[in-house]
């Protein structure tokens, strides 16, 4: 019923808490200083006769400079500390496991690399970096896990990335933090942190049948006709996609791009935006023809398949 400070269950949480405690210290010190001065001066110099007046004082430029410089120094220090922490928060370590999250009014849909899916729950391994690749099917949501001290808005038509490394086994609150309409406060769930071996077992168990037949990335790749051009042989009219993810692609306009999820997404929806060098812009755009979930499935398939 009653707690005052949240538990810390990720590698980042303790670092955020340290910055918080320092800032609370600064706040308590200066609020106490000002309140104390007001009370002391207010009593010490209270008016003792009806027509008493105060003693005017000359401007003290040195004093003014001091109370410009001190707040400046403290706030710059807090800026630097917060900025350094933010770099860590916004850069997932290499080798993090990617899990796909779709926000939709008013639920979270999660899909693991193995194909296992869940709703309003996210199972993750302890002590392993996890990277969430998130998108929304409607309005802006925000993925917030207080025990991990992390939060990231989830936008429609865009991938947002969030990462964490859980340190505490157990079950933690998951909230939508960006107001998204009627049942915003019910768009909640839990993050369940498992021991790594437990997580492996969990991934392989469970009902992967929850995925409707024909909705998997492998199936979509055939059904949407992708395989017709993106063939693995020399007759292909389109680039070979095996091993594409993470590589550097040379573009027709002379530029280069790293094939990350954002690039795959863009190339499926708007193929002519970045045409690969040596190919014609023949591919039709799939914008409006596939759902966000199907898109995530395709991206997942392209990332993992050795030979799509």
């Amino acid at each position, binding site marked *: 019923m*009653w707690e005052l400070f949240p538990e810390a269950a990720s590698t980042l949480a303790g*670092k955020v808490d340290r910055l918080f405690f320092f800032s609370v210290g600064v706040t308590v010190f200066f609020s106490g200083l000002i309140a104390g001065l*007001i009370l002391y001066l207010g009593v010490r110099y*209270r008016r*003792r006769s009806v027509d008493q007046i105060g003693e005017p004082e000359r401007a003290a430029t040195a004093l003014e400079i001091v109370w410009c410089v001190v707040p400046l120094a403290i706030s710059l220090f807090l800026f630097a500390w*917060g900025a350094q922490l933010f770099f860590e928060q916004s850069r997932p370590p290499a080798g993090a496991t990617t899990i796909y999250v779709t926000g939709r009014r008013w639920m979270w849909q999660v899909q693991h690399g193995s194909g296992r899916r869940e709703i309003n729950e996210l199972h993750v391994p302890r002590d392993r970096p996890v990277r969430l690749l998130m998108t929304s099917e409607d309005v802006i949501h925000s993925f917030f896990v*207080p025990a991990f001290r992390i939060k990231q808005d989830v936008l429609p*038509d865009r991938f947002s990335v969030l990462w964490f490394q859980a340190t505490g086994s157990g079950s933690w609150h998951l909230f939508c933090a960006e*107001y998204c309409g009627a049942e*915003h406060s019910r768009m909640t769930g839990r993050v369940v942190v498992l021991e790594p071996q437990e997580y492996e077992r969990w991934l392989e168990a469970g009902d992967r049948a929850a995925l409707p037949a024909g909705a998997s990335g492998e199936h979509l790749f055939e059904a949407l006709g992708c395989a017709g051009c993106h063939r693995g042989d020399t007759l292909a009219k389109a680039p070979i996609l095996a091993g594409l993810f993470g590589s550097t692609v040379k573009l027709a306009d002379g530029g280069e791009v790293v094939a990350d999820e954002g690039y795959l997404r863009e190339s499926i929806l708007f193929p002519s935006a970045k045409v690969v060098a040596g190919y014609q812009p023949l591919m039709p755009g799939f914008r409006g023809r596939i759902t966000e979930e199907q898109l995530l499935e395709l991206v997942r398939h392209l990332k993992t398949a050795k030979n799509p």
Partner: protein
Amino acid sequence: MTEGERTTAAAAAPALRPESYLEGDHGLRSWLLTTDHKRVAILYLISVTFFFAIGGLMAVLLRLDLATPEGDLFQDDTYNRLFTMHGIVMIFFFLIPSVPAVLGNFLVPLMVGARDLAFPKLNLASWYLFNAGGAFTLWSLLRGGVDTGWTFYTPLSTVYSNTWVLATGFGIFVTGFSSILTALNFIVTIHRMRAPGLGWFRLPLFLWSTYATSLIIVLGTPVLAVTLLLVVAERAFGIGIFNPALGGDPVLFQHLFWFYSHPAVYIMILPSMGVVSEIVSAFSRKPVFGYRFVAGASVAIAVLGFLVWGHHMFVSGQSVYASLIFSLLSMLVAIPSAVKVFNWTATLHRGAILWETPMFYALGFIGLFTLGGLTGIMLASIGLDVHVHDTYFIVAHFHYIMVGGAIMGYLGGLHYWWPKLSGRLYNRFWSRLSAGIIFIGFNLTFFPQFVLGYLGMPRRYHAYPPEFQVLNVLSSAGASILGVGYVIPMVYLLWSMRYGPRAGANPWGAAGLEWRTVSPPPTDNFTTMPVVEGPPYRYPVPSETPT
């Protein structure tokens, strides 16, 4: 009557009190068609008090509902509409107009030593625009209200919400023009109508902060108007601007919205800072310490306020480097804010301090604003903001600035200038008691919300996990105390208008041109137009008969 005749008349019959602006023509028509800045101020006082009562009632209902984790009082939809309308009414129809349109309208001509504002008819027009916008917003409230949050984030507001977004947006759009007209009037009046001898560095600090506020209003409000029009274009005509399904960018809306709405925070707090400067000086009977720094800090806050909007968007997906720059610039706002707080505190040193009701509010403001400002620095530090963004920590922080700051300043100003405005003194006991109740109720309402926020309770949540209940009940209890604290002044101030003792020209023995005319002032403000011979806040105040 020419200037010469009036002087002669005053000299011939010094005992004759000139007819005050409240006397004379009493008819409803004379009030509704008045161009007297003092009467327009009273009209605004009535309007904003009405909207404050509505917004406050909604706050009480919200807090009542939040006393249980499941929110047993309302449905989700009702709750969402209530917090949206609470924000819209309080921000656009109370906080923004409160100090400028009531106290500013009343005081700017008196403080510069003029008979009226530069454009008296525009001033009246501003009140009508304000009420037209307010009526439109209330109409949409009665038809079912709006549920997007006062922030109108897209594509929720332009595509998914099926409430009265356009009607409410139109109401805010119209009201924006009333702010612009008021601000324009203040800028021109302060530039062109100062009494002989009243140089810029002889202006009372209330005018410095009013001037800085007016600049923000004139520069910022049109951006809000444009943004609302773009929302209309998308929602009503399907023109893709913010909706990604139509090729738009939802984050663009946030940039445009906060480009106005962050400076709007300073529109709300700067005027109250001006009030605090006046009160601290008057009740210490000495000039504000570091006058030029305090004046400059107002302008600095106005300028910096336009450069920090991106700190509302650290987790929105804006570029990491943009976030870093916005974080750095936000930190700079700490300096002029700290300069004000330190100078007010230093003003007390060797003062002749009288603990009267306005001083309670002013000193309360300094303490609460300090806490609100320092938690603002925490939020500007990105690494920390990521966790507390969109939680109750933010709710607590901005209520410390808006309620603990802006409303404390407004109430302090109202109590300080009430004898001038009404010509009467109010009850000391009840006014001090209610100031104490408000201070305690405020802290009990909002301090637990800092704790709730760090625990992770998101804002705009109708239902919440049961472990947050104790802190929520504390907050709700505080809100009921705060509500009582706000009702008491309405009673004793109205009471004083009829039964209060006459105030006399200068009941506080304060410096300032407004105290050199009778209370309430005559329609033309001064019988002989004042000439300023020195810097402001000079004590002792010459005990001449009011002119």
